[in-house]
């Protein structure tokens, strides 16, 4: 599904990724861990095509396409979703209208018919119920006045509606209390399927108690320095990142 091949990338003027390679197959869940400043968020932003991150070397193949060649909105329509670490507020635009605009833009790109408001309403009502979220989320302006937990829940809800092929969660667990963490991770688990992959960027192994990864990678100084299974996350939790440098 996703093949990152020896990528170097800059965020602003600073080189952050230095020869990163990673392969994600359909249905797999990969956790990316690592110390602050290692380049975890840059990886997410690079894949989503955020303008301030620029690849200087290497390639990224996504379902047979050169991902780095696509505009960010094209990547979204191809099935790349980024759950932001700091979701922004858009005053006056209600969440449902925002999501329908997004979904129909993606459908248009893929040559599909737009979804009318009645169909869309039925679909989101079902999703919000399945994900155990409150439906006032739909009527409120995008993230305006949301608590940290509500914003993260909204990201996962949007993911559920847009049904991406590759979902990248950028520290979605940070700032969540235990109940919110459960709702968010239950949402992610519901979306797991044999043809949908996840990259979960996190500091803490506690999220991985709820979302069980197939692989855990440690990202340090711009590249993956160690890969393993869930056991690796537990070792990191106990020993920190220091031992990796020895």
């Amino acid at each position: 599904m996703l093949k990152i091949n020896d990528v170097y990338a800059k965020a602003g003027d600073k080189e952050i990724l230095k020869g990163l390679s990673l392969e994600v197959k359909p249905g797999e869940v990969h956790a990316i861990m690592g110390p602050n400043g290692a380049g975890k968020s840059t990886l997410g932003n690079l894949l989503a095509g955020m303008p301030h991150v620029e690849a200087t070397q290497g390639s990224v193949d996504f379902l047979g396409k050169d991902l780095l060649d696509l505009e960010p909105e094209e990547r979204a329509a191809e099935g790349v979703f980024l759950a932001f670490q700091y979701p922004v507020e858009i005053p006056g635009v209600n969440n449902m209208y925002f999501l329908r605009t997004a979904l129909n833009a993606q459908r248009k790109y893929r040559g599909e018919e737009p979804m009318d408001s009645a169909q869309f309403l039925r679909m989101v009502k079902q999703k919000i119920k399945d994900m155990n979220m409150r439906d006032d989320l739909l009527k409120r302006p995008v993230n305006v006045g949301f608590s940290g937990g509500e914003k993260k829940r909204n990201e996962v809800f949007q993911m559920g509606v847009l049904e991406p092929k590759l979902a990248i969660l950028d520290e979605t667990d940070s700032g969540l209390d235990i109940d919110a963490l459960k709702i968010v991770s239950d949402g992610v688990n519901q979306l797991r399927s044999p043809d949908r992959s996840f990259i979960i960027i996190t500091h803490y192994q506690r999220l991985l108690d709820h979302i069980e990864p197939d692989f855990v990678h440690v990202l340090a100084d711009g590249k993956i320095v160690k890969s393993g299974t869930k056991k690796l996350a537990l070792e990191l939790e106990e020993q920190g990142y220091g031992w990796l440098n020895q």
Partner: protein
Amino acid sequence: MKQKLEIKGGKDPNVVAGDDQEENKVVKARASQKYKEGFVTDIESFTLPPGLDEDTIRQISTFKGEPEWLLDYRLDAFRKWQKMEQPNWAKLKIPEIDFQAISYYSSPNANKENAPKSLDEVDPKLLETYDKLGVPLHERERLAGVAVDAVFDSVSVGTTFKAELEKVGVIFSSFSEAVHDHPELVKKYLGSVVPSSDNYFAALNAAVFSDGSFVYIPKGVRCPMELSTYFRINAINTGQFERTLIVADEGAYVSYLEGCTAPMRDENQLHAAVVELVAMDDAKIKYSTVQNWYPGDENGKGGIYNFVTKRGNCQGKNSKISWTQVETGSAITWKYPSCILRGDDSSGEFYSVALTNNYQQADTGTKMIHLGKNTKSTVISKGISVGKSQNAYRGLVRVAKKADNARNFTQCDSLLIGKSCGAHTFPYTESANMTAKLEHEATTSKISEDQLNYCLQRGISEEDAISLIVDGFCKEVFKELPMEFAVEAKALLDISLEGAIG
């Protein structure tokens, strides 16, 4: 003094776009002008030669078969106008206007005797024009629930649903007809809110006004449908000087909407209108404007100069006047729909969205004059500046000595798109009463990279993202518009934003 003046969120009330926005999001002027109302109707018309003197005014008055008192009113206004100077206090660069180069009367009916008696007799070309503008006047295709008075250059060409409205006592007609059919009402209220000496453009209008709409809602009547006037400038080198007068008697209610468009031309054209509203005890008037005069091209060539005086008098107790405007057109907009809150417990509202692009200039806002006790006013202004345009809010809140417990809330938000435009806020407050409570909030913001990125990541293109964010920014004003027109206003904003991204 227990006056409360809050400035929240606003750093500097007079902010010009800085240079901190990233280069990759440089906003260019729209590549191709998409003003779909820019066509010209090829129709035989009678047009006075350019020029303005007392004879011109006598001729206009004769064409209209006006009574002596109205001619005197016009001539008096003209003499006042001649002694006045064009105002220059607004933040506008106004090229010198040659008032002798303008024609002051143009009528699509070749002569007065042939004037249509009913809509069936109206020239098909005119009906077609209004069809094209989305305002069908035909019996079959009329807008449901909306009565329309169609003004073409200097004359009203037809009014729909007149008979239906008469059944409930509502008078809705062209101004010229009202002068003949209801002279006592016109005489009583003409100039009662905006005197002919009020300002330069109001004086000019009082001298040469040609047509417009007249509305009277009798006591206790809730007008059963939306009333609207569609103003169309067609003839070249003419000005449009319309006059609208709306009177809502005790306990009456009316919602009125005006729309306006003009052909695309390289020459500037002048539009100087006067609107007067009068609300008696417990009466409510809701006045909405969707202003889409030709704004000029991307190099600032052509476009309408829009100098308008709009004022409402909340004469009665517990009366209410609400102005809602969506201003996207005109090369220059100079317009301050205001409320005089004379009756105790009366209230005034002003909701405004003003969008300027390319080289457009707007200086718009409101005046809320609190005279009665317990009077309230609300001002919500949303200014959006794009391209090289300049957008200013100018507002006055005045509380008179006897206006105990007056309240005002003003919120003034500016959104800048690109780095060559400007947003300016000029709030004036004058309070002579210790019990007044005035609040002013101002913000200036730009569409942030983060907001755009968020939309892009969800699959929404940059152009659609800007439209979405701007629509959200204007929400508080759009929700005040009648439903049918809120949709139109949003579409209009999208067209005006087209090409905002380079």
